[in-house]
């Protein structure tokens, strides 16, 4: 990576930093909105996902990474989704029993 490229990256880090600060304020503001539990959770997690994507793409350089890492992360994401949907599946099964 050339010094010019690094300097360009630094500018991006500053922009991402400002965006993350702003989105943190947005996250807190959302919690004060009276829009119901489920929409509140969905909106809160949506903003958190944008923040997480910014950190992963720019600070962790995932926007410009090797294929090996992308494959590792795809496998991780599938395993993670299974883990998250397990309780939901269990709840649905329980709802059918009762």
């Amino acid at each position: 990576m050339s010094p010019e490229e690094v300097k360009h990256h630094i500018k991006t880090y500053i922009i991402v930093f400002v965006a993350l600060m702003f989105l943190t304020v947005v996250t807190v503001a959302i919690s004060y909105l009276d829009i119901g539990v489920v929409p509140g959770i969905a909106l809160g997690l949506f903003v958190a996902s944008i923040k997480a994507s910014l950190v992963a793409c720019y600070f962790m350089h995932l926007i410009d990474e090797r294929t090996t890492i992308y494959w590792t992360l795809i496998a991780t994401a599938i395993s993670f989704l299974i883990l998250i949907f397990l309780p939901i599946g269990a709840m649905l099964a329980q709802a059918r029993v009762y």
Partner: protein
Amino acid sequence: MEIPFNVKERPDTGLYNGKLGVWFFLASEVMLFGGLFSAYIFLRNGVEYWPHGTDYLDVPLATLNTLFLISSSVTMVMSWASLKLNDFKKFKLYCGVTLLFALAFLVVKYFEYSAKFAHDPPYLPSTNNFLGIYFTMTGLHVLHILGGMLVIGYYFGPGSKMWNTEPERFTNRIEIVGLYWHFVDLVWIFLFPVLYLL
């Protein structure tokens, strides 16, 4: 014996070995925290009433901690960029500031936990499921902060000697320490709304 591919990239993976190793480690970390998030969903949906975070937790303090962690992520990546620009002094500055932000996070967390224990009656992990999962998730996250501070502190102090002999290898080490640190920030980005706000 020389360890291969700690500076140059391995032809088959396109990465130096340390970086691939850290990404595998982070994948396992996703599953560790994923298990706890899964438990949170299970606990929350299994009851009629689930308390709002503000019933027990201090949102302004947690917001302050979010700002500390985001700032520490920026200074961490700036310390790596400084090494890329051959500016060791700036690396030291940014690395030191990262440690200070991490310390500030822990101090705030200490006050937060102390307020819970000092409450009458005390708010303990055994009080209810909400506090149980709160202490488990934030406690594990604090352990990760401590581990990160230990490693960053080592490279800020005695470990930085490597810059004089193997600058590229040292820069790579800071990059992968940074990857871990950003992951810790990333976990907090989800913990904050899930536990405190929703």
